[in-house]
């Protein structure tokens, strides 16, 4: 069992776990993020690859791919956001039910990437709120899984109202840390690059 997440703690009584209701809900949301089966271009192929055996996002609770936005929790904007497609992307996002999250996969979705061209929207965040950005062109399935795990962590620490009667009503989302800054010290340690002439 993937316990020991934010707020869910093992007790000293064997298989008994203790948590507050809000934390337990957040914890279960974290491990059941159902992606919407939606792709725009090349990135979608790598997203689909992450579902298959070698990578297998089922390990992170996301194996249930939904064909309808109404049943999905997560929209992965995988690929180039085309001007002709933009109203449809927004339409499908609006059909998703709360709580819903967006992973922006690939350079095109993030900023237009290498396609600074008339028919491409320069970043899906011009009309959708994005929770996690995954970089790459296309990002490898490993990179996508990393984004999914990051999203899971953010979801687990999110504060949502328990009902329309109890507690404060707003959603408190976790801060979006910059991974570039977080990983800089580790990356700076790398001084020797492997030669591409061998395997």
């Amino acid at each position: 069992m993937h316990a020991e997440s934010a707020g869910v703690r093992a007790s000293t009584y064997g298989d008994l776990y203790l948590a507050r209701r809000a934390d337990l809900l957040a914890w279960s949301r974290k491990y059941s993020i159902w992606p919407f089966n939606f792709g725009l271009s090349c990135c979608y192929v790598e997203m689909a690859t992450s579902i298959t055996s070698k990578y297998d996002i089922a390990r992170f609770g996301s194996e249930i791919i939904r064909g309808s936005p109404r049943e999905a929790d997560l929209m992965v904007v995988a690929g180039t956001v085309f001007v002709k497609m933009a109203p449809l992307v927004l339409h499908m996002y609006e059909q998703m039910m709360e709580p819903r999250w967006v992973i922006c996969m690939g350079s095109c979705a993030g900023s237009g990437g290498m396609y600074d061209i008339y028919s491409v929207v320069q970043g899906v965040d011009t009309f959708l709120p994005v929770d996690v950005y995954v970089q790459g062109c296309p990002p490898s399935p490993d990179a996508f899984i990393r984004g999914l795990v990051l999203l899971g962590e953010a979801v687990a620490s999110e504060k949502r109202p328990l009902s329309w009667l109890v507690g404060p009503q707003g959603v408190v989302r976790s801060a979006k840390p910059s991974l570039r800054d977080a990983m800089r010290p580790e990356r700076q340690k790398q001084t020797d690059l492997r030669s591409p002439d061998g395997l």
Partner: protein
Amino acid sequence: MDQGVLQELADRFGQAAVLAQPTRDGIPTAWVSSELLAAVLRYLKSSPKGAYPMLWDITAIDERTRVHREGQPPSDFTVVYHLLSLERNQDVRIKVALSGEHPSIGSVTTVYSNADWYEREVWDMFGITFDGHPHPFRILMPPWWEGHPLRKEHPARATEMGPFQMSSEDAARMLSMMEFRPEDWGMKRESQEHEFMFLNFGPQHPSTHGVLRFVTQLDGEEIVDVVPEIGFHHRGAEKMGERQSWHTYIPYTDRIDYLGGVLNNFPYVLAVETLAGITVPDRAKVIRIMMAEIFRIISHLVYFGTFTADLGQMSMVFWMFTDRERAFDIVEAVTGGRMHPAWFRIGGVAQDLPTGWDTMVRDFCAYMHKRLRDYDASVMKNRIVKARMVGIGTVSAREALEWGATGPFLRGSGVSYDIRKNRPYGGYDMFQFDVPTATHGDSYDRLAVHVEEMHQSLRIIEQCLAGMPGGPYKSDHPLATPPRKERTMHDIETLINHFLGVSWGPVIPPGEATFVTEGSKGNHGYYLVSDGGTMSYRTRIRTPSFAHIQMVPMMSRGLTVPDLVTILGSIDYVLADLDR
């Protein structure tokens, strides 16, 4: 190349009516007047000395700012018709000069059926009107678009056009503009007995393999007609060619058929090499072919897996994606990339093969042969799969040619035509392989051809393994990019040339060249026009998926919606290849 067809045209229509233009690729090219065009095409289609049954491409060139047009008649916009003859194993290019800002020309849809979409594309991209076209609507750009993107005055960059803004009201207005109106397509809402149902399929649907929309007109379960709507994946790849240097355009080619990786680099670098007159050393040729065939297997595996998944056989896609990962291990070791390695260069490849590549490739071939035999048992001989595929989406050889089908699609209909065999390019003449064909042209046959092609690709890869030549992996030609660095620190002239070659990129001599290769899905062709600069003047990308998706209505009439899914799965198309 034999220019006899031009003499034949001159004999038939008079010497004055046909103006020949020499091109770098040697494809016979003739200018004719717009009045004569339909007659010329009709004659060529059934020429007694070797017919041109296939309209391979129609495109246009905005000539208004072009400098090097020596020997060509004055023209503001040129429409280019590219025909293919199997009998002669030769192409012919017919050009028509048009003058004025928004010229018009007669439609040739009555001569070649597949001219329909090509003419719509030219209208959409250039604003050239085709008189008598049955559906003169935009095809790639959305209906609210203003202007025609491939005209020289249209901005290329999104950042030149101001920030993108879309409120919920804007989105609703755009969606209402995309609503399907049967009357526009000459479709009735009811027959004498029933009302038809219009079922919208896509642009977001797992079985369309991407953002592509079909509107089906149904009488009960039966498909009366289908209208495909494309352009959701239009990424402006052709316009991009006009602002990237010849070298920095290579990564954009990877993203055309995004499952085919270096198979896309191939026609592009060969076209540039034709323009520049570069010959490639043997080692580079064999490395290119080996990587291209590995990518053919990768692409076919995705096709095979997703096709069977569409039919409900879910396990194959997991098996085949695992195989694909093994092939990607080689690709990663050799190129450092996965799907889009952008690894071919003008004049060779980016790098030599790493030590130990041969063991990896040998292991992969041994593994893959066995896997393909397993798939034969679980898919090709599976009677449920057969029941879904056999007899569905049948296309005769004549129809396939008429609609511009190429590659495994054409061979599935019984026409043995493979560019690698019929016009060996890039060193394919050094290899032994067969061209698999089938007879019925149905969905099962198209799949069977793909499966056999994987065996043949493995055969080619094994030959590369056995006979990999030594020597340089890149040409010494001064236009090969990036230029050689070794001698740059010895004399100033080499340093200057190196600096310019790396910063501005090579200057390719003026001229025109088309290069056609056998991609995984059909013929990929790059028609490049150089005006003697560091960037292309016009880049035309002819892709197989565009031709094949145009055939969907013809293939699916009279069948049911699940059959439409089978047909789409059997075609092997990819969205970036369709809309570019």
